[in-house]
């Protein structure tokens, strides 16, 4: 059920986002260069795993949230909407995992 998926990924993201915000705030101190960031993340399996799960959770959570908004604020609903959102989910998944590969491998 979409509701279950939405709330489950919400819990996962609550932890992941908190961790991510902390990481970014830490990285922003003293400015960031690509080399410095990539030096820490390249070949780092832990980072890769963390962000892969993050991307997966977002790819589930965001489209379901958007679905509610579109159904409530526009006249669009039904299969075509669900299909469009699945495409958006795929987009997030592909772009996200590509970014994880770019940064962590």
């Amino acid at each position: 059920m979409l509701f279950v998926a939405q709330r489950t990924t919400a819990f996962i993201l609550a932890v992941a986002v908190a961790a991510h915000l902390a990481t970014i705030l830490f990285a922003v101190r003293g400015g960031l260069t690509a080399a410095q960031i990539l030096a820490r993340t390249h070949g780092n399996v832990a980072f890769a795993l963390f962000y892969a799960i993050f991307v997966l959770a977002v790819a589930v959570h965001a489209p379901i949230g958007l679905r509610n908004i579109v159904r409530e604020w526009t006249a669009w609903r039904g299969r075509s909407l669900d299909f469009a959102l699945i495409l958006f989910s795929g987009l997030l998944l592909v772009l996200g995992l590509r970014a994880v590969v770019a940064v962590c491998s």
Partner: protein
Amino acid sequence: MSDVLAVDVWRGAENGQFQAFTLPRRQHQTVLDVVTEIQREHDSTLSYRFACRVGMCGSCAMVVNGRPRWTCRTRVNEVVSGDERLRLEPLRNFTVVKDLAVEMTQFFDKWKAAHGFFEPGTAPEQDFAVVPPQTKERQAADAGIECIGCGVCYSACDVVAWDRDYLGPAALNRAWTLVNDVRDRGQAERLKAVSHDNGCQACHTHMNCTNFCPKAIAPTYAIAGLKRVLFRRALRSA
């Protein structure tokens, strides 16, 4: 306190306009007093509903200066100060029949759709059920059982305004009281009835229903309860 009260009353149905009246201002007037005086002394064609006049039946619910309330329990002094005008409109989210009277059918149809009725089962018990009032389930049911179906929460709900299929706070609140009724035998069907796109998961916790309920019932928490039960069931079956 000024001696006259300026009132704008909605006339017509979905299409219509406000009609202005001026009445003497009296110290302890309720909004119902005002509407009644308008209908009796000024314009007998005005349509509105009331019954008990004492805050027990919920028939007189309408939107007073933007907020859904019971007119018999709303003093004019509570909503209007100085020279402010009083504005009366029919409940939001209902089809307007005429002036201040709305069509309640869809509201009660959704009650049924949410299985807001007791299901004794095909083989009812032979003896009385023993339900101690302090049990968690009974307390949860008791918290929502006083609902008289006045429609204020339904009028206040944004999600009902955005999605006319949404079952709404009253129907879901009633469903929750029955989910907590240990004698009921229709739980599986009821939970299924509230689990679709128009069910409890459409609630976004704006809490207008809880804020406006004249009986201090909190449909938000009842709906949260339904969400929890459905969540646990889904995880268990996975």
